[in-house]
């Protein structure tokens, strides 16, 4: 771990990186503008060849949170078994991050899911469509301002009669 921390500090010395550990999770907080460079550096120089998880958290109601969304990347090295959690933050009104599809193809559906559920866009993604909800859906269900029961959603859907179908 120390070597990665040192290498990152050396390479990205001008940027605000935060290193922390909780239980066995080694975490690095990175600024959104440097996200792609850091991930590419970790992949190419430190053998983090697998992106196992990409998800987001909406911190709207989280006590003491400064930013709206956190996006989490869990990297694994199949060579030495190391695991690393990279986290960055994005904010309203236009949450946007660079797509890491060019680094790991597993980001394809994972980024689509984050877009579908949180409305965070990924620039450079080849096919950023909704994946779990229908295309005509207008809300982002996992945002904290979306209610549990989603009242009113169903009225937005067009009703098909038998004759039209």
């Amino acid at each position, binding site marked *: 771990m120390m070597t990665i921390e040192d290498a990152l500090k050396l390479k990205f010395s001008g940027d605000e990186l935060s290193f922390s550990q909780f239980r066995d999770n080694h975490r690095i907080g990175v600024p959104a503008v440097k996200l792609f460079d850091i991930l590419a550096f970790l992949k190419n120089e430190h053998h983090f060849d*697998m992106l196992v998880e990409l998800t987001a958290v909406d911190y709207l109601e989280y006590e003491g949170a400064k930013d709206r969304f956190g996006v989490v990347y869990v990297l694994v090295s199949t060579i030495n078994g190391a695991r690393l959690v990279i986290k960055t933050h994005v904010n309203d009104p236009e949450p946007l991050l660079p797509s890491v599809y060019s680094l790991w193809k597993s980001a394809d559906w994972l980024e689509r899911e984050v877009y579908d559920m949180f409305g965070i866009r990924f620039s450079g993604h080849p096919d950023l469509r909704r994946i*779990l909800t229908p295309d005509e859906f207008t809300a982002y269900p996992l945002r904290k301002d979306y209610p549990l029961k989603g009242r009113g959603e169903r009225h937005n859907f067009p009703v098909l009669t038998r004759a039209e179908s």
Partner: protein
Amino acid sequence: MPFEVSDLAELDAPDKEYLWTLNFGPQHPATHTTLRLVLTLDGETVVNAVPHIGYLHSGFEKLGEHLDFNQYVTIVDRMNYISPLHNEISWHHAVEKLLGIELTPRCKYLRTILAELMRIQDHLLNTGTCALDLGGFTAFLYFFQQRELIYDIVETASGQRFHTSYTRVGGVAFDVNNAWVDKVRSFVKGFAAVHAEVHRLLTRNRIFIERLKGIGHLSTEDCINMGVTGPLARASGVLRDLRKDEPYLAYGDLDFKIVASKDGDCYARYLVRMQEMVESIKIIEQCIENIPEGPVNVDAGSKAVIPAKPSVYRSIEGLIQHFEVMMPNRGFPTPKEEIYAATESPNGELGYYIVGDGSPRAYRARTRPPSYVHFALFPHLIKNHQLSDVVAVLGSLNVIAAELDR
């Protein structure tokens, strides 16, 4: 790999008019679950495949933010319903890591046995239906009868055959007794014969081999780049198994092997799954004779744990503790932290990313479902194969739509 808009334009070109489109699913006997594929065919060759998912999306992760750590176990059950107990073990593994609870040795062994039974259960169904889709009905029935025995074992422990909701924070709902241990022993004893029989039925069966060998090939580089884990990855030569790499529960004490292959095709996946069952039986054999004595649940002094029923009925401390855990407006303090914890589920890496906000509910309960990542592979695997290979590839991926869509 993925479906790209440019692909579609190319396929729509006037000189490609001979291509035709086939809709596969969402209700189709060979998908086994609810998922849809739009296949573009050139004769019988699949030129392109576009998966459409979300038909079973039911907002599990949203529910996870409104239910407490014990209640949500009834929901994670229903994700990969082929091996429900493994989801529970995985969920509580992550919760206990967040809360910093160390399980009792008895519970660790008990959960290890159950996790391995679930692995066998999952592989039984997968290899069984894989054969079924290719026309081999016998193996499916032989294996399903073994699944029935596992249902019995699980029912003896939890009272439920399928959606058991058996684990709790810091332990399990009920301890097991000697009758349960005997049931597991007799299952282990009888399993080898059935396993060998199915080996004889399928492994050297010419039709079976010709339908699977060389189909859906996945190279090691693609496998890593696409985030594939579990038996799929091991069949493509990635030696990665969380039971060995990041030992949890009792796996550190046990003697077992990682099964892997270099071939990376459907047949290799079948072989890996078959052999993994043998390794799982070995693990169960080691555990069942060495279940430590002592309490199964963590001492109720830890605020997060449901106290044992006798202490609820007979002592005021137990009653208070029970009240504190159960009532929605009470609860226990949890760390304001975030954790990613994963276990090796039968299908691959099943992880949970939990954000704790100090309350007994998860602020965010993200599931990292292996099926989701694996189904994204499908267009890559099926390209330039025959239409009849669709079911073979789909069967070897073991996609469970409830876990896929959550």
